[in-house]
């Protein structure tokens, strides 16, 4: 394993640290255990109709929910962090809050996109449709995804970093207002959604299925933590690289100027571009 030296450059130029590596190992182990739980240990959702005696249910498609539902939770969590950090941007106006907000928004949008894709793939065998435009929860989730896609686009087009941070923070705070609509849509618009009401709150699922689902939450949380840590450090490095580049350019420019002044003082012609500047 590479080690850190006083020079700092060259031997360990990564965003990793000993603890983040431990986190990464724990995350990989959790993903492997989740896979075993989801595909080998839990049973498919098969029920018997009391009158006809026919089998019905989600069958093995239920295994998709062990990744879909945890992704929903970490999407909410990411956007929640983004909202808190956006308030921090508007109040404190420090780069730390801005990098945090940007990090949470980017990761949340990836999770949100995966929620839409996995939900669509799950819906095809269970609901017999890939997508339903009249479904309130699907549409509010799509709106959430599009608003944060706009947030990320906004972060690329504004030049002034301070103005960019403030505008993005306002957009994020407006966008997160959609989260309660997504979450409560199955109760507020019960007849306009294919989604069922929450089964977790009433604990209508049991034993290993419930455990696997909660283990999925833990695993998704670990994935979020690892991605967040490294994306934050990348964002921090991007700012530091710009600052360092500007500082280095200023120092270089000052040394060039000093050199030209010394040459002039001893009666020599300055070299390079400075010659053209001498009247």
């Amino acid at each position, binding site marked *: 394993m590479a080690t850190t030296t006083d020079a700092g450059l060259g031997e360990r130029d990564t965003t990793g*640290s000993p603890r983040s590596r431990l986190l990464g190992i724990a995350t990989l182990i959790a993903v492997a255990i989740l896979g075993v739980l989801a595909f080998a240990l839990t049973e*498919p959702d098969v029920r018997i109709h009391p009158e006809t005696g026919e089998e019905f249910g989600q069958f093995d498609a239920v295994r998709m929910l062990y990744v879909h539902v945890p992704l929903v939770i970490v999407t909410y969590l990411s956007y929640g962090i983004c909202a808190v950090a956006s308030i921090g941007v508007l109040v404190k106006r420090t780069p730390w809050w801005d990098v945090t907000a940007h990090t949470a928004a980017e990761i949340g949008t990836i999770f949100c996109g995966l929620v839409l894709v996995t939900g669509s*793939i799950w819906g095809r*065998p269970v609901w017999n449709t890939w997508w339903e435009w009249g479904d309130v929860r699907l549409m509010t989730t799509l709106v959430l995804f599009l608003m944060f896609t706009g947030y990320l686009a906004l972060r690329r087009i504004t030049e002034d970093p301070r103005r960019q941070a403030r505008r993005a923070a306002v957009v994020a705070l407006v966008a997160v207002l959609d989260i309660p609509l997504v979450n409560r849509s199955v109760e507020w618009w019960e007849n306009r959604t294919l989604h069922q009401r929450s089964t977790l709150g009433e604990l209508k699922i049991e034993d290993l299925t419930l455990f696997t689902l909660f283990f999925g939450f833990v695993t998704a949380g670990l994935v979020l933590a690892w991605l967040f840590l490294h994306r934050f450090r990348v964002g921090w490095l991007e700012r530091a690289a710009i600052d*360092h580049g500007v500082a280095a350019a200023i120092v270089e420019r000052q040394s060039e100027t000093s050199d030209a002044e010394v040459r002039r003082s001893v009666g020599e012609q300055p070299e390079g571009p400075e010659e053209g500047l001498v009247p």
Partner: protein
Amino acid sequence: MTHVGYLVAGWGIVVGVLTAYAVRLARRGRALSCLVPKPRRRWLEDRGVDGS
């Protein structure tokens, strides 16, 4: 097992996308770390971001 194709597609997309994103982050971090002196990378210090 039923719906194998759907399960492979769904889980495969999730694992694939998140792995690709993680690799991209690691590469981007590696590239940027070369441009920034060590004192600006707080996680390499004893009082770093994660306290390592």
